[in-house]
């Protein structure tokens, strides 16, 4: 069995308002940071997972992302995968 470290990024879809991102953007500007055009907040989920090769692990992660980690009505996801 191979072990992989996976980092999943879940983001609100561009069409969905991100009020937390807007509030943080407003605070960033008050802090004095200039030039911020957009600020959106997402989630990062780290998973360590075993499987027979990368393809099998990708299948498992795809299922997890699609059914649990993200609600695809309002969120998109992507992930990176590193063999340990």
């Amino acid at each position, binding site marked *: 069995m191979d072990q992989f470290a996976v980092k999943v990024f879940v983001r*609100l879809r561009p*069409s*969905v*308002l991100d*009020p*937390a991102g807007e*509030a943080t953007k407003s605070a960033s500007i008050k802090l004095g940071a200039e030039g911020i055009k957009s600020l959106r907040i997402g989630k990062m989920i780290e998973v360590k997972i075993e499987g027979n090769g990368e393809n099998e692990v990708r299948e498992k992660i795809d299922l997890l992302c699609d059914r*649990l*980690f993200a*609600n695809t*009505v*309002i969120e998109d996801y992507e992930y990176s995968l590193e063999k340990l």
Partner: protein
Amino acid sequence: MDNFTVGIVVFPGSNCDRDVSWALEGCLDIKTKYLWHESSDLSDVDAIVLPGGFSYGDYLRCGAIARFSPLINALDDFVKSGKRVLGICNGFQILTESGFLPGALTANKNLNFICDDVELDIVSSKGGWFNDGGEKQTIKLPIAHGEGRYHCDSDTLKKLVDNELISLRYKNNPNGSSFDIAGITNEKGNVLGLMPHPERACDETIGGTDGLFTLKSLILE
């Protein structure tokens, strides 16, 4: 009807389960039974309420973890059989997460947890959940949520409108919901999800009785 029993689902973190029981038993004389979320035996209940609260601490997203409970898995056959399911607040969030109702509920536009009475237009009485009296009517119900902003894509919204699946719309949209949506049904009409709390509006002494009709309609066949 004497033995008609409404199952009230209890998740870790549910906190309106007893309110729903009080409203059904105390105000409407309808028998209730608590259903622990790990049970999948729905054979002795005739309708189900998914109450408000914070199932599984709202971890990940509201309703996201509750969706995987044995009881929610068993709900599919229950809904297909035409029996009635009412999801209130967190219950509505669970119904969208698990795909019984379209769309999703996410953080209020102003990020506040809003606890208030709101005026709602009855848009459709599909499924018999609301009394539209043959014409448009307004009711007042309490809301209490931080993540009640209904969102769906434009195709879904068109489908909701065309099929009269939108039951309730906010008069003064408090949370930024698409199209002011406060409650929707499935196409068959036997599943209703809404953010306002009808169980908190069942007695004049606590501010109103506009929630009685919806709870009473659980016993419709």
